[in-house]
């Protein structure tokens, strides 16, 4: 039975190739645009997440209990050996490193600025974050060079210092004394991320320990862990929480350290939903338009069918099926177009460099590689199909309510 409706529907649509063609084009353009938008959105959100985590933060961090909230250097881990032992041989871990993080003041020849000092292990750091790749001038820290410092490029400009110049860093030790130390600028970092370029000063962790009086080998504020994939993060956190004493340590996911990427993802999602909704409404208004017109056109035909014994339900089903066939044609064409565009740009990238500052602020690269996901396509498909049925109901209902005698007399 259903097949007959479908065939009837298809035949009716093919009877008016121009009208059907125009509607299908409208539908296809709408669906294609939505598919592309959704792929694009996924592409840059993935990109943002990866950059966000890999620039500096890592997927998971372990601190002494309470450090994330207090940010006090006095809440440091006296020895990280316990954490290191827990991490040893744990699956899904790519690398980890130790840092000492403290905020302070940098001054050089008359200018001063606030800084975020990060004491790092030069070799391990390379494996965990991308900071190494962001060195723009000069060179990466060397372990032997205890007084070397790398500065964010904006910070360096603010202090009016260049390679080889002296910078004094001041920060509080765990006991609360202000400790200051002279460093020499070995390199400048440019990442495009404000918090890095404007604030960051990298020094060797061994120097940071001596300077701030953390003394012991193995003292650190953060253990920064890079997972092999985002999907492994939850497993790693669970594992660590089992192996570590949670009275002494806190284990934090990247979302908990800075919720910005997560918030932005939610916001982008809401935005996409609203655009999706509006475009679907417009497309369906168009389908409704076509179906209503084709119904007015065929009033006599419907009257004749009814007179020949076609039931109201059958007429109703026929028109709804016609709508479904129409939307399916447009939908398939739209998906093909949208997917083709997404795949093309997934290969070659879409260059939006003119908005580079906005992108780098959002931790995104200005070359966008769309990513087509099943989830995104399904969302559009379901919205279009539900809408198609809704748009078909009214014309179908009108067609099934026609009075055969009056309808046949209609010119």
């Amino acid at each position: 039975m259903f097949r007959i409706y479908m065939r009837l529907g298809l035949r009716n649509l093919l009877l008016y190739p121009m009208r059907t063609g125009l509607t299908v084009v409208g539908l296809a353009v709408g669906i294609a645009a939505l598919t592309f938008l959704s792929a694009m959105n996924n592409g840059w959100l993935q990109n943002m997440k990866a950059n966000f985590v890999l620039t500096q933060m890592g997927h998971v961090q372990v601190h002494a209990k309470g450090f994330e909230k207090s940010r006090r250097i006095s809440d440091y881990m006296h020895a990280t050996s316990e954490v290191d032992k827990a991490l040893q041989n744990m699956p899904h871990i790519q690398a980890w490193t130790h840092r000492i993080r403290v905020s302070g003041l940098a001054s050089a020849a008359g200018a001063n600025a606030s800084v975020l000092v990060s004491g790092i292990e030069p070799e391990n750091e390379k494996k965990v974050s991308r900071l190494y790749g962001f060195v723009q001038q000069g060179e990466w820290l060397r372990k032997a060079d205890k007084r070397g410092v790398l500065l964010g490029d904006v910070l360096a400009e603010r202090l009016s210092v260049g390679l080889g110049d002296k910078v004094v860093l001041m920060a509080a030790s765990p006991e609360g004394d202000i400790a200051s130390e002279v460093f020499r600028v070995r390199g400048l970092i440019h990442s495009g991320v404000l918090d890095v370029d404007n604030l960051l000063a990298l020094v060797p962790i061994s120097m940071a320990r001596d300077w701030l009086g953390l003394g012991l080998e193995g003292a650190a504020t953060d253990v920064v862990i890079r997972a092999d994939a985002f999907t492994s993060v939850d497993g790693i956190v669970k594992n660590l929480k089992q192996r570590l004493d949670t009275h002494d340590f806190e284990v934090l996911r990247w979302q908990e350290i800075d919720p910005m990427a997560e918030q932005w993802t939610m916001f982008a999602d809401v935005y996409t939903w609203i655009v999706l909704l509006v475009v679907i409404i417009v497309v369906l208004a168009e389908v409704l338009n076509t179906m209503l017109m084709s119904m007015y056109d065929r009033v006599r035909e419907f009257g004749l069918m009814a007179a020949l014994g076609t039931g109201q339900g059958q007429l109703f089903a026929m028109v709804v099926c016609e709508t479904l066939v129409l939307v399916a044609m447009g939908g398939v064409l739209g998906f093909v177009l949208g997917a083709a565009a997404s795949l093309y740009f997934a290969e070659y990238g879409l260059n939006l460099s003119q908005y580079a500052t906005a992108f780098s602020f959002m931790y995104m690269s200005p070359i966008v590689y769309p990513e087509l996901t099943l989830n995104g396509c399904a969302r559009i498909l379901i919205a279009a199909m539900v809408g198609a049925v809704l748009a078909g109901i009214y014309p179908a209902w009108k067609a099934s309510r026609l009075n055969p005698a009056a309808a046949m007399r209609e010119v």
Partner: protein
Amino acid sequence: MIFSLAWRNVARSWQRSLVTIAAVATGLSALIFLWGFNDGVHNTMMRNLQQVIVGSVQIHHADFFKKSSLSRHMKLTPELQNALSKAQNSGQVKALSWRLETFALAAGNDVSEGLLLLGMDAKSEAKTTRIAEKVDQGRFLQAGDGPVCVLGATAARNLGVNLGDDVIFLSQDRFGALAADKFKLIGIISSGEMGIDRGLAIIPLNVLQNMLEMQGRYTRVVLQIAPDNLEAVTTLLRASLNHKDYEVLRWYDMYPMMKQWVDLENAFYYIFLGVVLLIVAAGIMNTVLMSMLERVREFGVMMALGCSRSVLAGMVIVESMILGALGVLLGLLIGLSLVAWFHSVGIDLSAEMDTIARFYIDPVVYTEIDADHLWQTAGSVMAAAIVAAFVPMWRVAKLQPVEAIHHV
């Protein structure tokens, strides 16, 4: 005559016309609503950025923004005085305030933290920015305050200080000598913006001037200006200030990412505008084409009676214009009512998202629409209606009277 003919054709098949008008109106009102949402989010973001602390335009000593140091300060020179009064006399400046700032190490209970130490004049600041509203514990500065300070919530927490506690600020004065003073914490700011909450300490302007040996000296003039006057005031200020001594920066010269972000999203909306236009145009074309095909015999008769092809073609175009215009009017009505309604009620997205304080985005969106976006959209829909009539018109112009009369 063409118009009355066209109007009669539109009215004759009123059901079909109504359906088309409704489709155009849906398209347009949907676009207007989208713009309303978009502009609502963007304008709130930009307004908040300007009003909370940054201001619309700032005047500094040349190069101060990039290389801030106390040596790049300003005094109230006749040149500056003259420029400012010109700007104020133009009536386009809502308010202005003077600030002095430097970096300092703040020491609280056992801990210290690098902060931006900002001297503000309580009275003029209250008229210029809304920073005072963001104080959620204690109070903001008042005229006549002595050595007191207001801290960002995160900074206060990091320093381990509460209202009434003493905070010591350590910095260098203009001559490079160490300057330190004790301040009583009287207020704590929670703005949600990380830069403010984490890195800011505000003290009275005159106190900071004395501490740094900077009497009568300032680092920034902050002006609050309505968006429409922004460019004019900037031009005026730039013209009357020597660019070797001063820099005049708009908010988006200082913080370009937000403006770029807005531009980027607008670019996306233009793409969707194009998509919806295409759909709407296809719909109008459908209607006009069908009504034309239905009337091929009628057209044939008219031509046989001496009606020229251009009159017929004109009629088809005017029909489409009538449909388009009615659709646009209805669409404007519905779209603007939607925008006005959600402007007063707001769209509450707090179930779906949090406040994104870093971008000054609120989870309740109040729609508003920029005039140029509105007219561009309405204009393009109308244009699409006219373009859509070209194919049917071209077909009419090709009709042969004899064949047309025989057409079934």
